[in-house]
């Protein structure tokens, strides 16, 4: 489903975020991407849907080239990849329903979308998706009146309504309290199991990664330093990923 070869990213500031990352992810996997902050997790995920353009290397998702894709090619890739952000990145003043409808933009007619006239079928789909993430009935609430956990569910609904093949989540719970974190991770797990969506979630909390990720990939200083099943994650491996910091 996802192929990454020798990915390298140097920012204009000179920071090397990715230093030769290669990774294959099969359809239906749930990968927990772990590493301390600055290890390159966010950059890696953003290279997968072209939000960040790598300096060198190769990415393809679901058989489509991401690196070197044209503007419209990139839109096609992004349409099939849901992305969930650490800070939710909702439009705070818009209704919950409109935030979810943003996920349909690549499908709906451009002019209708600019006028905010979404087709009835998409409205139904958006409402169903809100029900799926446990937010039925909150359609008309302004996004910023919801709790953090609810806002992240809206963001997940926005990604799901895209009907993507892949769901990328960049530290989806690090702005949330422990209970909401678990709820969000369980939701991602359900989506992975029931819909067969390929999920890559970056996490900086090891126990969440071990609980929810069937496969754990450890990044450190822009390199893959661990790749294995969660069962096989040893103390030594964890120290290699986090550099012997207290966990």
């Amino acid at each position, binding site marked *: 489903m996802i192929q990454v070869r020798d990915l390298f990213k140097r920012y204009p500031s000179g920071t090397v975020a990715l230093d030769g990352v290669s990774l294959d992810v099969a359809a239906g996997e749930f990968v927990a991407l772990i590493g301390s902050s600055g290890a390159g997790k966010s950059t890696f995920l953003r290279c997968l849907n072209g939000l960040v353009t790598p300096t060198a290397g190769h990415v393809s998702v679901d058989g489509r080239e991401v690196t070197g894709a044209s503007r419209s090619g990139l*839109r096609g890739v992004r*349409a099939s990849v849901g992305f969930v952000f650490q800070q939710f*990145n909702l*439009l705070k003043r818009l209704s919950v329903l409109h935030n979810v409808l943003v996920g349909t*933009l690549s499908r709906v007619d451009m002019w209708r979308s600019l006028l905010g006239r979404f087709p009835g079928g998409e409205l139904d789909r958006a409402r169903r998706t809100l029900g799926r993430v446990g937010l039925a009935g909150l359609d008309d609430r302004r996004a910023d009146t919801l709790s953090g956990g609810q806002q992240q569910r809206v963001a997940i609904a*926005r990604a799901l309504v*895209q009907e993507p093949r892949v769901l990328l989540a960049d530290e989806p719970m690090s702005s949330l309290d422990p209970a909401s974190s678990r709820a969000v991770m369980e939701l991602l797990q359900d989506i992975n199991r029931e819909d067969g969506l390929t999920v890559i979630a970056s996490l900086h909390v090891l126990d969440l990664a071990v609980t929810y990720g069937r496969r754990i990939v450890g990044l450190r200083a822009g390199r893959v330093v661990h790749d294995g099943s969660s069962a096989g994650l040893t103390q030594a491996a964890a120290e290699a990923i986090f550099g012997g910091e207290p966990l």
Partner: protein
Amino acid sequence: MSSGRRWAGGLAIAAAFIWSAWSTEVSLGRLVEGIPFMLDFIGRMLPPDPRVLGQALRGALQTLQIAVAGTAVGAVLALPVAFAGARNTSPRWAFYWTRSALNAFRAIDTLVYALFFVAAVGLGPFPGVLAVVVYTATVLAKLYSEAIEAMDPGPVEAVEAVGATRLQVLRWGVVPQLLPQFLSFTLYRFETNIRAATVLGFVGAGGIGFYIQTHLRLMNYPAASTVLLVLVAMVMLVDFASSRLRARLV
């Protein structure tokens, strides 16, 4: 700050004040001597002359119209300039030149623009509208561009991430963040423009100011006070309505 520097700072401010007051012939004595004349002036303004009420209302209406037309056109002109003058939506050189030009234009007040446009297109409310347009466009462009710079890039990135086109990103990622602020700034500017437009008549650029100046010059103080009362009522009414509206936007 050391106490020595504080003393030096205080001394400098005091010196600047004394120098300025002396140069501008500030005199408490002359102010006190003037008090009877002020009271006499106010006395002669009373009671207001109701016969000029219709004229005052027409002037107020025209001032309102100048402010509405000038603010609307100025706001529209400010939009593209604001994006050119925002650090995050404009190349560095364009940002630099736009901001510098805006600062230069903004240094000149509406009344000075009015003098310029009266000379260019003749007397009447039209040069007044033009003056309000130019000043409003430059002020709003600055305020808008600051709002653009303060915009949260997160939601914009999120709309890009679903595979939206550039126009869709603008409509669903940018506009929802900026529109309420832009409307609020525009309304605030409208309130200020009403006040600026009240004196446009002094230079022949239309509105209620013409009547104020005429009656004062003819020493028809009761008529002048009627016009002033209408002006105060109009400004208060607009301020009230506009600030209520702005409170609902945020």
